[in-house]
């Protein structure tokens, strides 16, 4: 099961990169970037999965005495938890720059922004 999820994560990364490189609208590029972000998170969670074990939260189903033999590693999940929040911050920053560029030039086409060309 983890291998299927990992393959899907890599395919989502490729889809996101393809969309970010071939679209010409800035909003479409940001959407494709979000898809690639989801793919990266899914790959990391699928790496941390172990077969036959359960979630690393202790309650009546998993007691503290047998926790070492029954729960999976919680470190990749904490990593992904941080990465999701940072991802939404990066997305909000890109959208704010998109709005400022739209106020400046009244267009979202990436071919119109030619100030850094020489």
């Amino acid at each position, binding site marked *: 099961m983890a291998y299927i999820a990992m393959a899907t994560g890599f395919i989502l990364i490729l889809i996101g990169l393809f969309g970010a490189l071939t679209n010409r609208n800035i909003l479409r590029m940001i959407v494709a970037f979000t898809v690639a972000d989801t793919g990266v998170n899914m790959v990391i969670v699928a790496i941390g999965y172990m077969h036959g074990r*359960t*979630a690393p*939260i202790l*309650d*009546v*189903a998993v007691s503290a005495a047998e926790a070492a033999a029954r729960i999976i590693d919680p470190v990749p999940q904490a990593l992904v938890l941080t990465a999701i929040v940072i991802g939404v911050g990066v997305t909000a920053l890109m959208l704010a720059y998109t709005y400022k560029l739209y106020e400046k030039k009244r267009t979202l086409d990436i071919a119109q922004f030619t100030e850094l060309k020489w």
Partner: protein
Amino acid sequence: MAEFLINLAASLTGVAFLAALWRFFRGPTPADRVLAFDVLTIVSIAGIVFGALVEGRFIYLDVALVYGLLSFLGVIVVARYLERGL
């Protein structure tokens, strides 16, 4: 017996998921796609409950709780955008 019934219920939920996904893929208007998104979220709540039942963990039901609260927000945001632009 009970295990067979649970597997049958999960299979029917999977067919419902595929039908809603087909409507999401070719809805004529954006409102159809938003409706299909809503139905996909509700079917996903049923799927999460199946997962919690199979795994036997009480803590998985919190995810269904968050789903029930937040699908609503997404649908309302898109509906207000379709109405007059947020």
